[in-house]
């Protein structure tokens, strides 16, 4: 059967349940596409063909058995292939995190998010490329080479979940897990024309996610549409006793149902329509908002006055946490070790050889921000401003149900475009960072294409635990638009 890779996750699951397709066929279709396109795109760092086919065969058996016995509850995602970002641990598969320092590291444990999906029957196709330890916006910081954007292979797919985004956009996976610490799901979703969900902090367990900025890290989904992202969230979300920052009881928030957005109030923050935002992106986003209004929503201008401080605050807090999180990579227990006679020398040489320049830069920034005498001026101050940013959102969400804004200042940029200036690269995340600092959920949908045929992302933000509301709004939007259905010609 050809064209299996064109099915969305939801369609594929329907086909599997109906017995029209088998998981082995579906999995093989993806593995063939990976074989064909991945050498160019470099979306996957590791492909688990053998174990994927085994899992698929087991899923098919389960389906057959259920059909024979006419009933029995089947796991929600039985036989569905997925790709997993390489910062999430899957037992028995490498977890390089895009870093040399973990080149040969194979964890013995599985991240809770992945485990829940496995328990629901998914088939893991492999691990996807990422900027080293998720630090970056283009996958150019991966030690294993850049991933290419399937829409234009001279361009980046965004990052850090660029491998997952490219894999889903190129139909090398129906759906993929990403992580979002400062925009690492939403920005690549925007660059690749996907639906990218950054979950509320505390909604999805971080157990087994190799930490970058612990108070900002979230597990998210890159999917072709909101319905597929919702399927994944439903399974992987929820309280995990192994992550003390997950929430036991989440509030039930109102969400639109069906096609109508009547009564939905959308805030449009003026601080997100600023100099540096490309005209084409702005037009696309405004057109998207008009579309939401056409569905019955009401758009009102709002203000998030501390938005301009999000970037400096983020680039203190995230590196500070990273500097401690990455201290464990010392060559003692696992990972790269450069053998030396002297202990301190071994630490220095191992870390020096194992970490790339961006990671080193952030470790230095973070160590500095936490050091005696500078703590109050940097880390302490950043935490205070972070509280103000969070309050901005709390205030706005008293008045509106969601916020709509651009995801990125521009569409996908060329590989190497920001090669010499880390600050330029940091500015890529200017519209996505605030949500991480506030811990609120964010979602990116494709809202059209620019003159060069590159996808434009519309970002929606909601109050804490309004993940489903964002998905419902996106689903309504995707019922009347077809941007999300378009795929790159490979």
């Amino acid at each position, binding site marked *: 059967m050809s064209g299996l890779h064109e099915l969305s996750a939801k369609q594929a699951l329907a086909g599997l349940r109906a017995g029209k397709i088998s998981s082995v066929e579906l999995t093989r279709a993806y593995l063939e596409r990976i074989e064909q396109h991945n050498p160019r795109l470099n979306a996957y760092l590791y492909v688990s063909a053998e174990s994927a086919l085994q899992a698929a065969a087991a899923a098919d058996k389960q389906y057959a058995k259920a059909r024979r016995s006419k009933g029995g509850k089947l796991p929600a995602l039985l036989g569905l292939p997925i790709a997993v970002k390489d910062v999430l641990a899957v037992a028995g598969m490498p977890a390089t995190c895009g870093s040399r320092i973990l080149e040969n590291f194979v964890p013995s444990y599985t991240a809770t998010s992945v485990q829940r999906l496995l328990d629901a029957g998914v088939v893991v196709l492999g691990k996807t490329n990422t900027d080293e330890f998720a630090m970056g916006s283009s996958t150019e910081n991966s030690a294993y080479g850049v991933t290419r954007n399937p829409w234009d292979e001279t361009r980046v797919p965004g990052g850090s979940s660029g491998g997952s985004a490219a894999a889903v956009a190129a139909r090398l996976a129906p759906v993929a897990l990403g992580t979002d610490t400062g925009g690492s799901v939403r920005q690549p979703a925007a660059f690749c024309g996907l639906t990218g969900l950054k979950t509320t902090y505390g909604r999805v367990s971080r157990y087994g996610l190799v930490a970058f900025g612990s108070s900002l890290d979230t597990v998210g989904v890159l999917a072709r549409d909101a319905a597929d992202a919702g399927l994944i969230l439903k399974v992987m979300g929820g309280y995990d*006793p192994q992550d*003390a920052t997950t929430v036991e009881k989440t509030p039930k928030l109102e969400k639109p149902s069906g096609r109508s957005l009547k009564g939905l109030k959308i805030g449009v923050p003026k601080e997100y329509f600023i100099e540096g935002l490309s005209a084409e992106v702005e037009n696309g986003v405004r057109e998207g908002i008009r579309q939401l209004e056409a569905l019955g929503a009401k758009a009102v201008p709002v203000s998030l006055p501390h938005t301009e401080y999000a970037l400096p605050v983020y680039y203190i807090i995230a590196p*500070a*946490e990273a*500097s401690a999180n990455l201290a464990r990579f010392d060559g003692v227990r696992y990972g790269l070790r450069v053998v030396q006679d002297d202990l301190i020398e071994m630490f220095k040489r191992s870390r020096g050889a194992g970490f790339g320049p961006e990671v080193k830069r952030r470790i230095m920034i973070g*160590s500095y921000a936490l050091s005696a005498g500078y703590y109050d001026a940097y880390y302490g101050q950043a935490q205070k401003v972070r509280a103000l940013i969070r309050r901005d959102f709390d205030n706005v969400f008293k008045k509106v149900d969601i916020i709509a804004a651009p995801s990125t200042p521009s569409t996908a940029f060329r590989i190497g475009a920001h090669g010499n200036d880390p600050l330029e690269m940091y500015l890529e995340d200017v519209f996505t960072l605030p949500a991480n600092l506030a811990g609120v959920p964010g979602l990116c949908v494709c809202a059209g294409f620019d003159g060069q045929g590159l996808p434009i992302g519309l970002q929606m933000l909601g109050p804490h635990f309004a993940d489903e509301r964002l998905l419902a709004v996106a689903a309504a939007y995707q019922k009347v638009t077809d941007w999300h259905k378009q795929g790159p010609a490979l």
Partner: protein
Amino acid sequence: MASKYQPVIGLEVHAVLETRSKMFCACPVVDSTVGEPNIAVCPICAGMPGMLPVINEAAVEYALRVALALNCTINLTSIFARKSYFYPDLPKGFQISQYEQPLAQNGWLTIDTVDGEQRVAIRRVHIEEDTGKLTHVERDGERYSLVDLNRSGVPLLEIVTEPELHSVEAVRNCAYALRSILRYVGVNSGNLEKGLMRIEPNISIRPVGSREFGTRAEIKNLNSFRSLERATTYELARQEQLVEAGGAVVQQTLGWDDARGTTQAQRSKEVAEDYRYFPEPDLPPLVVEKAWVEKIRKGLPELPQARRERFISKYGLKAYDANVIVAEREVADFYEAAVAAAKTADAKLIANWLTGPLFGLMNEAGVEMGDLRFGAKQLAALCDQVAVGKVNAAGAREVLGVLFAEGGSPASIIKARGLQQISDSGQLAAWVGEVIAAHPKQSADYLAGNAPLLNFLFGQVMQKAGGKANPAAVRDELQAQLSKLGK
């Protein structure tokens, strides 16, 4: 010491909270001084990528017991922090500890000093995790450091006193008092040799009468109370000599070398490490419910200080005996159970038998209260037998020896061994008469003024009686017959 200088000493005590599992993972807490290395390790306490800590509630409860016993103010919200430094025994590259907002602060405990009771202020009590352990070995001419993570992540309580101790004796008594409290509330067995309790004094001196603090030195690596005393004495003398010779004390950490009886500089605080503390983002603030704290407070046992006062007033014990008995909860419990079970023997008699002969046997054999083969009831029964004169002291000691070695009931041991005391006056008079007749010279010398000879004659009578005669009655009869002889 009669010196121009006053010692100013504070204690920093690390006590393992002997919970079943570690502070932030489900690994068991095992004795890390014996057995195989790395048998109680999981990805969390090995600091593997992606692992997260989860607070062990039992450890928090243990910590609260100690904090309440030390009269601390409990911070209902406290914060865990990361303390960063690189070392192979620290898997994550940081230790989870508490820094700016500890679990508890501003407490006190009472200790004895030569000048009477002293209230020592507790600055703070906080929870943290222990590190692993390194062993340095040489194999085939190559030197290796081996890492054992059994201890990594074991819950620790850090207790910091204010620098208010002014003598070696006060240091010792404060350390003992802390140990006693830790044991009373059932969180720590107080074993210094195994490192379950680590005491680090910070020591400075200042001219008598001065209110300023001198520069302090911290001493580590003290694995017995004896080394605590020796090291403190040594360091005070070293600082005094240094200052007297015109030198200055340097702020530093010193390691005690027990074999050589000296300290060695471990690291200078001049180039103090910057631990880059910041709140642990993987753990929300630790919130303890007030009701829970009160429940724990109510559940605390009577603490050594209060118990000592009660023993003195209720049982009429001397302060010294009361101290010895209350120092360990098991001993005090045993004592009170014996007092309650005794029919004739009074509390003082029982205290004497407990702290004298029984402690002697226990010390000699290295046995703890919990290991005894007999209970408080048997001690009470034995003391009853003594009190009613059924057995004399020597016989009772023999009975105690049998109880200690084999257990059993005092009454049947006395019977089986024929240890019943002989008080029959006819029998005693006959034995006394025989002894005087057999030792005319000693009897005459005694009457001539050589008083100690009475003991010799007494011993002869007891020998004849096989040790079973009532000693008081024997003395009376001896004196009566001798004085008759002298007339």
